[in-house]
């Protein structure tokens, strides 16, 4: 087995042992990082792999959170089914939105993803009777059998590791390679016989599916959800996580999520001016570390691998 796979196994084992620290803080942070890491990696399917800059990924995250929660609360559906339902619904929404968006390019594509995301936000915000509107939905309990932070942490770990496994395999496969060629040169890819639009749509759906899973997990983890989850700064934040970690590597966005969430926790215990810090970090990134953290480490030959 390759060096990298050994490294990953060690990380997973460490993560599995985390709850033994008996620290509520670390369990909480760990769950948060896993969930946002999945969200960021799902976004990177589009950004880093396919070259599609979407400003509206928060839509699928929020849809996942609200669908799962509402199915449980309003329709009394058991968590496992609600969870799967949320993921599938996320993929369906991504299909519909993606269908319209991929017909455009670059800035127009980005604007349309933003527009759709805002439409969904506005619907959730205004549909008081269903979603509770601005007040959100609070008091979401842990599901049966997962009724402690530790248990839910393990559940999240399993789901996220499985998701990463599936996504990693997909990105390392010929399908993933085609996405990369689309990112590099869509025109050329079209003329090696690839239906580019189809692949882009598929990437969109995959991204939406896993973002919705992250959202569903988040709803339970946070015990409450608000329309904020769908508002565009949420999309911007996960975008920054992906770039902070490094958008040209698979786990980059996970690293970015970890760093960002940890930093946020640190900073907000001292000051309320986290946006100031986040903005400064982003600016520094853009000017001095274009490859993100992982990109930087790779250039220092710490994690040297073949390119993808």
């Amino acid at each position, binding site marked *: 087995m390759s060096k990298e796979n050994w490294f990953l196994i060690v990380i997973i084992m460490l993560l599995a042992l985390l709850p033994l620290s008996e620290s509520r803080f670390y369990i909480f942070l760990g769950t948060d990082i896993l969930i946002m890491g999945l969200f960021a990696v799902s976004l990177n399917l589009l950004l880093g792999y396919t070259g599609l800059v979407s400003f509206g990924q928060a839509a699928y995250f929020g849809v996942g959170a609200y669908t799962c929660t509402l199915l449980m609360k309003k329709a009394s559906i058991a968590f496992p089914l609600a969870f799967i339902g949320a993921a599938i619904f996320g993929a369906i929404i991504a299909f519909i939105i993606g269908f319209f968006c991929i017909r455009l390019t670059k800035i127009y594509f980005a604007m349309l993803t933003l527009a759709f995301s805002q439409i969904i936000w506005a619907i959730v915000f205004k549909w008081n009777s269903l979603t509770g509107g601005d007040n959100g939905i609070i008091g979401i309990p842990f599901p049966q059998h997962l009724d402690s932070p530790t248990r839910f942490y393990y559940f999240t770990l399993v789901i996220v590791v499985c998701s990463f496994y599936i996504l990693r395999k997909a990105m390392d*496969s010929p399908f993933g*390679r085609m996405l990369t060629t689309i990112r590099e040169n869509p025109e050329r890819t079209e*003329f090696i*016989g690839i239906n580019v639009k189809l692949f882009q749509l598929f990437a969109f759906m995959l991204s939406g599916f896993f973002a919705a899973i992250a959202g569903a997990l988040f709803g339970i983890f946070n015990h409450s959800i608000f329309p904020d989850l769908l508002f565009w700064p949420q999309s911007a934040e996960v975008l920054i996580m992906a770039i902070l970690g490094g958008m040209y590597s698979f786990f980059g966005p996970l690293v970015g999520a970890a760093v960002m969430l940890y930093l946020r926790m640190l900073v907000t215990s001292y000051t309320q001016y986290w946006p100031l810090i986040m903005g400064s970090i982003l600016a520094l990134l853009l000017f001095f570390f274009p490859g993100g953290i992982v990109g930087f480490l790779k250039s220092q030959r710490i994690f040297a691998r073949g390119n993808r």
Partner: protein
Amino acid sequence: MLTVEKVKKSFDGFVAVNGVSFRVHQGEICSIIGPNGAGKTTLFNLITGHLPADEGKLTFKGMDITHLRPYQICRLGMGRSFQRTNIFPRLTVFQNIQAAVLAHRGKSFNFYQPVESFFQEETQVLLKMVGLQDYAETISGSLSYGFQKQLELGISLASEPELLLLDEPTAGMSAQETHHTIELIGRITREKGLTLLFTEHDMEVVFSISERIMVLHQGRLIAEGSPEEVRNNPDVKKVYLGEGR
């Protein structure tokens, strides 16, 4: 093999291609020449489906391709190189060609097997054919211009085309590189029995390997024939007067 019938294309009132008709037969080496702005690249884009024609009909191997998308036309057996080098810059040379082979062999939807293991041999064969086997692991974006053009040719060939369209294959090359490229193209065309249609500015290249030349001017086909015929054609001479070539 390829039939172009009365094809017309306008942009915002400007007529780029004005009722062009010609045929390319199997195994022929044809070229299209004409001053800048004559409509050569637009014509290519119409043939490969990158632009929709306003009027006219395009037939390839007996099938009507007028309304097909580029990827469908490619799958029918047409290959193309582009005027500005079109490769996948962040991938290695090997990965560039391998991607094209993957697409051609219909493995692009495979979700679960690692991509490295696919079509190693076939890719090596192609690399050798375009003379880039020593650069397999080089990031393609860092190659010299000439090598990038060779790589692009390799990508086109991976689709095992029967008709190859080359848009200014020696543009921006030195005399030595041009000679090398033309020799390479000629050899491959003969070995694989390809039909070749290319546009060029370099008249030496055109007259040295073309069997038939078509001259485009302001969107219209003004002359067609063997190199000798075209060279002596008064209309062509008029158009090129002052070109200084």
